[in-house]
């Protein structure tokens, strides 16, 4: 097999059964595993380190470095756990669903390689509860693997250094909560508790699930491992166009002609993604701004279109590449309303543990609602800015609140005029032409967003 340019998605074909074992094998699936079984654990970890793979869940932490914190060797705890974070719930992110539904075997292969690297024998997939098709396919893929000696005892019947390689995978379907995506909250959920994040240190790499060393990585991160092992870290590094290595699943949603997902080299320009792959804006709509990496990233503007989708490049512009799924704000949608939707989501999904998040976010929601209703006062903008500061990194227990205020703080910077117009004219200028409709739906709109049937304890 020649080295592919789209390692993660080359398995995804038009065939209805492209997610099954036979299809995966016919495209070179599990070649990474066979190669990994010929390598030592140190060699595997070195390859992952040298590939410069960074976590694809949003934070971009170097995977090899994260894994090197796990105690290894003879003195290390015998039990260690690997967890695939498949709790995709970031607003505007839909990349993991694609990989989960279309390439479940790629995830299993990534887990197996993780097991060989760290000496773990148990892997978990923490799946979002609403991903029913993914659950069905993962379950079937696990069964296929068991039948073909790819999971269970003595995998492939060829030991490593004279010892059988055993590995089991358990699928946990979540009961739904955004905070479960935070790795220590996820571990608490796996232990059957409320998903509140844990204090760090100790880090889960040392004290994680059931108190044992645990690695939690995103679906896409695990999917990269077989290819790094199979084709080498130099090949992987060369895939990226900019500083970062490999490819990335990028996505676009909003008023573009062809919303969707594409596997492209890391460092592809935002303009290429939006204008070429997503087909540009729909007729009659103009680009006003965009969130480059999901709902918890800062807005960027048209002037930033030529920036490269690369962790450091986007950071320099004051935002984050996050999940790599771009959300487009068009010129006909109210920016205050967009921010309100996002902050309301984060307020609702806050676990309630620390004050800036539990009390600060609902406060920001009420101020934004007031402005959107046409009852805003100039001091509300100052208060919103204060709330952004209160929720800044370092003031909160986890990254939820700092992420929640990213779209808010950047909207206050870039779309300040919109906030001021709302306050000055005491109405939403975007909805004004639809005043009649607004009056008719105002009641439902308000209620629509208090969406709980006692499933939540705010």
């Amino acid at each position, binding site marked *: 097999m020649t080295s592919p340019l789209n390692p993660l998605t080359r398995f995804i074909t038009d065939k209805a059964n492209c997610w099954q074992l036979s299809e995966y094998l016919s495209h070179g699936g599990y070649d990474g595993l066979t190669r990994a079984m010929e390598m030592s654990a140190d060699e595997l970890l070195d390859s992952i380190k040298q590939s410069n793979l960074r976590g694809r869940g949003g934070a971009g932490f170097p995977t090899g470095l994260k894994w090197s914190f796990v105690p290894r060797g003879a003195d290390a705890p015998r039990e260690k756990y690997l967890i695939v974070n498949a709790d995709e719930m970031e607003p505007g992110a839909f990349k993991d669903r694609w990989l989960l539904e279309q390439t479940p075997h790629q995830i299993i292969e990534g887990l197996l390689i993780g097991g060989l690297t760290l000496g773990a024998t148990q892997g978990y997939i923490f799946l979002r509860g609403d991903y029913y098709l993914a659950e069905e396919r993962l379950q079937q893929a696990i069964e296929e693997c068991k039948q073909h000696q790819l999971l269970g005892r003595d995998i492939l019947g060829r030991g490593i250094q004279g010892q059988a390689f055993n590995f089991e995978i358990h699928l946990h379907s979540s*009961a739904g909560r955004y905070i479960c995506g935070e790795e220590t909250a996820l571990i608490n959920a796996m232990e059957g508790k409320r998903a509140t994040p844990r204090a760090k240190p100790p880090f889960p790499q040392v004290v994680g699930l059931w108190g044992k060393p645990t690695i939690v990585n995103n679906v896409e991160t695990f999917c990269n491992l077989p290819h790094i092992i199979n084709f080498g870290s130099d090949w992987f590094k060369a895939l990226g166009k900019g500083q970062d290595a490999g490819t990335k699943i990028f996505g*676009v949603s909003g008023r573009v002609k062809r919303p969707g997902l594409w596997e492209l080299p890391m460092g592809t320009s935002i303009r290429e993604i939006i204008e070429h792959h997503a087909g540009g804006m729909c007729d009659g709509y103009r680009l006003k701004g965009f969130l480059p990496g999901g709902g918890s990233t800062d807005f960027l503007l048209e002037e930033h279109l030529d920036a490269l989708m690369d962790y450091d490049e986007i950071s320099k512009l004051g935002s984050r590449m996050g999940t790599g799924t771009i959300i487009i704000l068009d010129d006909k949608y109210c920016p205050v309303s967009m921010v309100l*939707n996002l902050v309301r989501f984060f307020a609702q999904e806050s676990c309630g543990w620390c004050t800036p998040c539990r009390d600060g976010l609902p406060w920001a929601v009420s101020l934004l609602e007031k402005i959107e209703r046409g009852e805003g006062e100039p001091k509300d903008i100052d208060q919103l800015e204060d709330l952004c500061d209160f929720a800044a990194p370092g003031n909160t227990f986890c990254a939820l609140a700092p992420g929640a205020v990213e779209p808010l703080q950047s909207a206050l910077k870039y779309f300040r005029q919109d906030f001021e117009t709302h306050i000055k004219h005491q109405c939403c200028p975007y909805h004004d032409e639809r005043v009649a409709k607004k009056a008719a739906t105002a009641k439902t709109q308000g209620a629509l967003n208090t969406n709980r049937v006692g499933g939540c304890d705010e």
Partner: protein
Amino acid sequence: MTQSYEQLLRILPSNGDDSSQLSPCEIKQLDKLLASAPYPAAVSIDALKLIQQQRGWVSDACLSILSAYIHVSIADLDSVATFYNLIFRQAVGEIVLHPCDGISCDLMGGVEVRAAISQKLHIEPGETTPDKRFTLIPLPCLGACDKAPVMIASKQVYPHLTVRNIAQLIDELEENKK
């Protein structure tokens, strides 16, 4: 203190309501969960989901019975049950409609679609129709943003909703149920 399951069975009124006892099928599945967990509390979420799968929602009676069976206090179990979005502590209809209220759907007309559902069924979010057929519970970003606006109902994702096609879709769901 956790009461034993047998003790609790004696205390609870047996009014022929099957919710006051675990079915043999539920017990079998719970035992399987318990056997695979390092300690009983670890199965809390899976056990609650299992009960809900059988009964549609988790009533107070279910919670007591489950608490006694898996030896987790009612308070602990309820704190877990109320934390998660997909565990219902109130009765829901036969079909739970989960329209997405994430930003990508709202940018594409999600607000109007949800308003249309409310208008068609005469229920607000969190409410159930009088005939107990539908409950409306919007959920945040369902991860199908390229097909926005979307809704999940009966484990199925319905893409590209409009004010017009949502009414027809609800009619079809109602027909299928009959």
